[in-house]
């Protein structure tokens, strides 16, 4: 056993040591020092005629202007890695954004890739840039242009993303099929009906119809019957329960809480965070760990922020497909087990409802821009807290819960954001 280093003993020692360090430092996790002070977006759509760089220019300039800073105030750039766009990923990784935008004050740059959880990690890295004194203001951009990726490359990417090449892929598994299997099991265990599942799409699309940055902006919201009459893709998942790929981009300007406060402008302050890793693949995912991970990380993030779930004004969830919305709602205790579908059906989660939920409509409502939906969700969180959310503005928002998740649901990052 060459690698057996009597792990349990070491593990025990290490735990004791880390606990002591944490106590000595005080509860460092709760000292969040980050605020979003500016956001910019290019609406999700289809732009085969626009280069990714055109979108980067537009969204980043908008974010800098929204923050009311000068471009040379940006001292760090931490970009979301563009998925399935190798050439662009290489260019961004090797520092092209500060050069292209003429960010003459930039002191360092990097790219972060954790799939749909990338933006959360960009924000964490930004905290470190700021905490270490490297940067006072950081730009976090994202861009995706799916429409010019050759179809074979897209199929190839999405056929294998989050799917194991040895134990899942050869059987004909797809991203849709793994979600469909999760959906089937959830419906079986909870007694949730087809109509209730479809009503999640209806709820998400109601928000999307109010969002100028959504591909479904001002589009007719489908009825439950229309969702269920769309073609079956992977039973029980219908076409309207799957995501439409889109192009788009977004950018955020972040700084320390102190600077944001001094600037005296509306901002979104990071208040709490926690996370759980589950597994890379759905086959190996333990359902109990998954559900408990939702519950525990959310509770920890709320504790970190010093509030309870009753204080949350918006549950701004990014869960990609409908099924994880009710799973999360029930796991966190926002309704009785098996009752989440009814919450979506009776309007609690709709605009004007008592529990505003996923106010850009998640990927189903926004259009899927690779790892960009998490960026769009953070921008929405910031807009709601800044009072800039337009028609979908929820009145008097003090706290927003936001999560992200990467791969095929490999992890769950729970964050809490406040107006102050």
């Amino acid at each position: 056993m060459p690698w057996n280093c009597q792990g349990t003993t070491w593990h025990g020692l290490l735990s004791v040591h880390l606990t002591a360090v944490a106590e000595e430092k005080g509860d460092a996790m709760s000292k969040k020092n980050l605020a979003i002070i500016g956001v910019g977006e290019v609406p999700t759509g289809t732009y085969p005629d626009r280069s990714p760089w055109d979108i980067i220019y537009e969204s980043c300039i908008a974010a800098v202007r929204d923050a009311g800073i000068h471009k040379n105030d940006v001292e760090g750039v931490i970009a979301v890695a563009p998925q399935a766009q190798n050439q662009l990923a290489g260019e961004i990784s090797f520092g092209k954004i500060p050069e292209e935008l003429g960010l003459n004050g930039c002191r360092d740059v990097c790219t972060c890739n954790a799939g749909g959880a990338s933006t959360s990690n960009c924000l964490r890295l930004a905290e470190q840039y700021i905490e270490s004194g490297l940067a006072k203001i950081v730009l976090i951009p994202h861009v995706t242009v799916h429409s010019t990726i050759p179809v074979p490359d897209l199929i190839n990417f999405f056929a294998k993303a989050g799917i194991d090449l040895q134990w899942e892929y050869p059987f004909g598994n797809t991203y849709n099929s793994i979600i469909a299997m999760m959906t089937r099991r959830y419906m079986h265990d909870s007694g949730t009906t087809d109509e209730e599942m479809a009503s999640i799409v209806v709820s998400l699309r109601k928000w999307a119809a109010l969002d100028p940055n959504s591909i479904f902006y001002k589009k007719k919201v489908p009825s439950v019957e229309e969702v269920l009459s769309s073609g079956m893709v992977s039973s029980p998942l219908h076409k309207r329960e799957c995501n439409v790929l889109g192009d788009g981009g977004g950018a955020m300007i972040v700084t320390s809480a102190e600077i944001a406060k001094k600037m005296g402008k509306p901002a979104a302050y990071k208040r709490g965070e926690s996370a759980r890793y589950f597994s890379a693949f759905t086959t190996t995912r333990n359902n109990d760990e998954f559900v408990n991970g939702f519950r525990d990380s959310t509770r920890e993030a709320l504790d970190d922020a010093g509030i309870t779930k009753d204080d949350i004004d918006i549950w701004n969830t990014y869960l990609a497909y409908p099924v994880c919305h009710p799973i999360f709602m029930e796991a966190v205790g926002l309704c009785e087990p098996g009752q989440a579908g009814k919450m979506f059906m009776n309007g609690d989660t709709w605009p004007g409802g008592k529990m505003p939920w996923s106010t850009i409509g998640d990927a189903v409502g926004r259009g899927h821009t690779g790892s960009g939906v998490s960026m769009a969700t953070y921008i929405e969180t910031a807009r709601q807290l800044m009072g800039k959310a337009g028609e979908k503005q929820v009145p008097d928002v003090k706290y927003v819960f936001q999560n992200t998740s990467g791969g095929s649901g490999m992890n769950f990052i729970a964050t809490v954001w406040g107006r102050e």
Partner: protein
Amino acid sequence: MTDYQKPIPAIQPWTREFWNATKQGKLLIQKCQDCHSMIFFPKKVCPECWSDNLCWQEASGKAQVYTYTTQMDMVEPKFRADLPYVIAMVDLEEGIRMTTRIVNCNPEDVTIGMNVHVVFEDISPECSLPMFQPADETLRRLPPCIDECESLATRSGSPVSPDTYETIIYDIGGKNGAVCTITLNRPSKYNAINYRMAAELIDAFRRVRDESSVGVVVLTGAGEKAFCTGGDLEIFPSLCEHKSSLNWLSHEGLDVQRAISGCEKVVICKINGHCLAGGLELALSCDLIYARESAMMGATEINMGLLPGWGGTARLPRSMPIFRAREIIFSGRKDYPAKDMYDMGLLTRVFKDDEFEEQVETVVKNIASKKPEALRMGKEIMARSVDGCDIETALSVERNGIQWLTYAPDVQKMMEGFRQKPSDLLARQKETNLRSDNK
């Protein structure tokens, strides 16, 4: 098995034993001999204690369906022929959950909690895929007999259309879209024919029938080495089985010939390099055959103790004097220069290499300028005539075909003017003749 087009597992050194066992119909589970954990997916070391003291235990093969989905749409082309198919996660008796397919039953009979047993699908020399079928035999549907039921689309990997062609190029061009060029596009394989190419050729030649602007189809090969050298060696293992071999001839072979000869356009074969065996038979299904002077031709099947099986023995003797056709088939030579073939009576024309493209283009352009309906009628009348019917029947087919063309609305419209002034017709015809004589 060897023409399996779908993905095979990406085997790691530490999982090879699992896959080797599948070839013997065994489902193995990895187990840690130190902490006794059952491990799936198999790992290099135990994920619980990092021990490398691992062993394999044979599973009973009994499992229950944990969840499943019937895949109906939006899959990679290589899986399309399988639709609809059931993907499932099953819990093995031994406490392992794996992703698999549920097979040998109606998708609507699958339920959560259903008892299932492992069966193996042989997909490569290295591994078989562990699938599961209902334990309840009354729910089992007989597995399709591969030899009898395997469709062309299944064999070739996915449905075929110009958007998904992998082995040919389908291009409509020329003046007013009158020419469709179908290019055999496997130049690194001398444009050899595999199952996929057969399926695509059938699709392309059936599809072009409905292109009303097209009068001429040009069939050629990509690259400079070959037009086509016949069946790809990759299909040969599948010919070891009697029915599979017959199907290659009677399904793919016959359908390709029929698609070309029955496509209702003038098909011009443009032989730009080696044209051997099945490649020669493709050419024989066409209406006109033009070859580059340097092209080498022949029927090589006899060298393997076989005979041409995609129409060679039927079409070659119908295309040239039989004593010459016999030599080509019996000799197995693959070095007949194009000029020799022409002298023996086979080809339409042979052009010098440096003039080949230009000369063929002139021919194509000229024929493509003719009325597609007339070309179609001509192709059909002559095909029936050389089929061996008696002369009176042949003349009758000709007469009635021409009469049909004469009474086509556009021709009648033109005739209307001449009916009013018959002298115009005479003057026009005289002028045409003079112009032609003076060329």
